[in-house]
């Protein structure tokens, strides 16, 4: 078999293959990678004539076996993963039958599908660049196969030129084409959900504070909410087993209902602001909420004022939330009150004694709680992300011996005391603060902003108390970094994080710039949804009032298709039909009705000769028709007046010949 690829082509194909593999390596089983490399090596050896390409039956055998093995290996990871692996397997197996241009086409097209899949896993702008590179590589493969022997610079020029030429069209399509909802449901990844978890015990949030990963971003329509008010509520915990705070049964029920889209009706009034959230994927349902957020499209409210998305947030998702000033509350029911006061029977005797003595002294409940908070700020309590380990009696150990910890420790102890005193209270976890980027008017909230605070029921409403504020007020005012300014606990593990080195000015500027670009990318590309599209296009079209939005989209699409049509068929290139040809065609039609069809190779002379046998007109008339036709069509340098004269004559003869 003649080799249709040259060395350059094959090298390019394999390079593309390896890049594709490495781009998706996190998602792909290493065995498959190994197998794919084997396939490509086989093809290289084949190229040098040492090995044959496999026959059809061998190929079938290998394909079926490897598919089955792949399915068996990947099965536990779910349907989506199986699909991905099978496509990748096909991509790899193509090497074994790469024997014509057509096979290269299949290879490249499969590559495009894989690039599309790549976008399911990665959203950032850097990854988009990687994907663009992959696409460029695939196109280069196509070009190298078809382009023959183009010199290097020529090749590159042609490639880039054709890509650049198609770029405006791609942008236009991106802006104009309606977003379809995904046709299939993305199965929830087997990935650990990131961010806050379903329960909290002292120690957990400290782990989050080691991560500078972005949790979500927010921008406000009105003025930004002040720093001290930025308590982004995520979870509420009302059940305590002595070690861990978690949600009670009734709360869990509510969470389940929220997944099905059932919202708790909140009586909100006085709209004050609205916030745009872009939430990073965390493979969970929560949506951060400021007090008090209204439910809306794609999200529901819980009775604790938190928000839940109706689908897991598996990609960057955009929420527009209206904020309200006031909320109408109902008194607690007996069950609720019971739940909010429940404590484990055993343990923490010292704390219980301390509370009991205070109560005996006749001090008011609220005053006892205030005193506790005062103790936090005046006594020897310390804010640290590396607290000493606590024993079984968490609260006792913390309050009376270690006295060192972070938000969860303080919140947990405060809660315990409040409940002992009979004040209904609950723990709230979420994020506090966020870094405000003044230039682009948005704030980024990172994982290390995770926080826990307390709400107590007072005067028939929930009152937010943040015990951490008393021990480390700068945590609330300035964020975690400030509160840890004297130690190296901040982002202890992330040596290379730009967050850590923000006191170096240049790096800090760079970091802010990157954050800005990434924000724009997220808000305008990743989350460019139907609503945004509608708004953008509408804002354009309001300037031209007679344009209706939908008809315009339709018009643009039509124009696009029309231009593509015209480009392909190029009707303007079609030759103008000459007048003499029209007459001749007329004559042909006339005689074809009478059973004389012109044969393909027949000249006008032959045709007229045959026609004269069918007609009563004199044969000289036919002869003069053919003569005049030929002279009109083929004579060079015919003057315009002469041509006109002859055309007239030809027309006359043509009429005569159609008479019988």
């Amino acid at each position, binding site marked *: 078999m003649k080799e249709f690829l040259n060395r350059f082509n094959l090298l390019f194909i394999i390079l593309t293959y390896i890049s594709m593999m490495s781009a998706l390596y996190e998602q792909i089983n290493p065995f498959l990678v190994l197998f794919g490399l084997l396939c490509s090596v086989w093809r290289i050896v084949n190229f040098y004539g040492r090995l044959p390409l496999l026959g059809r039956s061998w190929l079938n055998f290998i394909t079926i076996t490897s598919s089955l093995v792949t399915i068996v290996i990947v099965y536990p990871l779910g349907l989506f993963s199986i699909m991905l692996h099978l496509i990748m397997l096909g991509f790899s197996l193509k090497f074994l039958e790469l024997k014509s241009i057509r096979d290269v086409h299949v290879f490249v097209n499969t590559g495009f599908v894989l690039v599309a899949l790549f976008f399911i896993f990665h959203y950032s702008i850097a990854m988009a660049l990687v994907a663009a590179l992959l696409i460029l590589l695939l196109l280069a493969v196509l070009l190298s196969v078809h382009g023959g022997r183009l010199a290097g610079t020529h090749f590159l020029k042609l490639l880039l030129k054709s890509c650049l030429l198609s770029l405006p069209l791609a942008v236009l399509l991106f802006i104009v084409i309606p977003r379809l909802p995904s046709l299939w449901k993305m199965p929830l990844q087997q990935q650990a959900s990131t961010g806050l978890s379903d329960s909290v015990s002292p120690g957990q949030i400290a782990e989050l504070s080691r991560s500078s990963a972005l949790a979500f971003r927010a921008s406000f329509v009105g003025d930004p909410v002040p720093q001290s008010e930025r308590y982004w509520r995520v979870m509420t915990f009302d059940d305590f087993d002595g070690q861990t705070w978690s949600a009670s049964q009734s709360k869990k029920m509510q969470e389940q209902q929220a997944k099905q889209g059932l919202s708790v009706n909140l009586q909100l009034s006085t709209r004050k602001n609205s916030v745009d959230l872009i939430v990073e994927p965390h493979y969970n349902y929560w949506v951060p909420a400021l007090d008090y957020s209204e439910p809306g499209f794609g999200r529901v409210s819980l009775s604790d004022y938190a928000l839940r998305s109706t689908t897991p947030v598996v990609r960057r998702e955009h929420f527009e939330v209206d904020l309200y000033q006031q909320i109408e509350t109902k008194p607690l029911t007996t069950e609720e009150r019971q739940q909010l006061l429940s404590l484990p029977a055993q343990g923490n005797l010292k704390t219980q004694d301390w509370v009991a003595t205070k109560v005996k002294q006749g001090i008011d409940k609220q005053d006892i709680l205030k005193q506790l908070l005062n103790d936090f700020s005046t006594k020897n309590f310390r804010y640290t992300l590396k607290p000493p380990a606590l024993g079984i009696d968490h609260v006792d150990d913390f309050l009376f011996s270690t006295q060192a910890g972070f938000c969860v420790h303080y919140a947990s102890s405060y809660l315990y005391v409040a409940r002992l005193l009979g004040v209904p209270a609950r723990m709230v976890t979420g994020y506090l603060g966020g870094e405000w980027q003044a230039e682009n008017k948005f704030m980024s909230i990172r994982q290390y902003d995770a926080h826990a605070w307390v709400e107590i029921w007072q005067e028939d409403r929930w009152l937010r108390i943040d015990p951490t504020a008393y021990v480390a007020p700068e945590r609330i005012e300035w964020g975690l970094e400030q509160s840890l300014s004297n130690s190296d606990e901040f982002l202890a593990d992330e040596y290379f994080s730009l967050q850590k080195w923000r006191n170096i000015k240049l790096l800090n500027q760079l970091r802010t710039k990157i954050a800005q670009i990434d924000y724009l990318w997220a808000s305008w590309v990743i989350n460019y949804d139907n609503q945004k599209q509608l708004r953008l296009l509408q804002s354009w079209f309001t300037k031209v009032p007679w344009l209706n939005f939908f008809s315009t989209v339709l018009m643009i699409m039509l124009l696009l298709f029309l231009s593509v049509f015209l480009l392909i068929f190029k009707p303007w290139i079609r030759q103008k039909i000459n007048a003499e040809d029209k007459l001749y065609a007329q004559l042909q039609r006339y005689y074809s009705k009478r059973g004389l069809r012109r*044969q393909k*190779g027949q*000249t*006008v002379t032959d045709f007229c000769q045959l026609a004269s046998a069918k007609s009563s007109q004199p044969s000289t008339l036919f002869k003069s028709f053919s003569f005049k036709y030929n002279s009109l069509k*083929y*004579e060079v340098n015919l003057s315009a007046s002469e041509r006109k004269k002859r055309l007239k004559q030809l027309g006359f003869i043509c009429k005569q010949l159609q008479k019988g």
Partner: protein
Amino acid sequence: MHNKIANILKQLNHILLGKEEQIKLALVCLLADGHLLIEDLPGMGKTTLASALAKTLGLDYKRVQFTSDMLPADILGVSIFDRNKQQFNFHKGPIFSQVLLADEINRASPKTQSALLEAMEEKQISLDSETYLLPLPFFVIATQNPMDQAGTFPLPESQLDRFMMRIELGFPNIDAELKMLKGHISSNKKLPIPAIINIEDLRMMQSAVRKIQASDAVLNYLLRLIHESRYGGITAHPLSPRCSKILLQAAKAMAFLQQRDYLIPEDIQAVFVAVTEHRLAGINSAKPGSKTFSQTLLDSVDPFA
């Protein structure tokens, strides 16, 4: 000038009865400055046509009967030592004439054929490190027997290509043959055939042929025919660019014969079979009764497009 053409045709038609088409083609070939190959069975009048053509055009001609034991020197000439002058003298062979009648060319050995065909292309011969120019105009009118006859060496494709046209005479129709037998014209060879034009006239005619104009439309038709031969899957021997040049030349000569100063597709069709068939078919003569390659091409390309 057209008078003279009419006279030539009249005289030739008088000598060879009922072969107007072939006579026209033969004349076209010479007007287009090409060599002519006439193929048919013995006794069909090949030699008669060839010699009548040469004489009528007023060209000096020599006739060589090719045989299997012929050597190149028999055609080209030979150098002989002159004892008096103490040097070699070149004795010109029959090729040094304006028209060479190469009778039964395929009976000669390939070596001899090659010697002739070389001269046809270059219009000169090289012998013993000397180059001798042939007189101009120089035509070769060759006749050959069909391949299946005994004692023939088929001309290879590359050498067939040197002939502008190959024509077949075919049997005369009954009327013409009857006329011949009745002795309407005596086949007495002694009757002299008068020259109707001279070399000067011939040159003028040839330059007039070159001046015939071809419009883009007709050239387009010609090129479509050529293209079809290359990519239409009809033959294994596609037509070369040289062939398209030759075809245009011959068609122009045909237009000249029709007293027109521009080319039409009819002209191309008229010469197409004679010009291309021997190139398309190669050494395989078409089987009698089957559609020839060139006719298939003509039928598959539409002049009206």
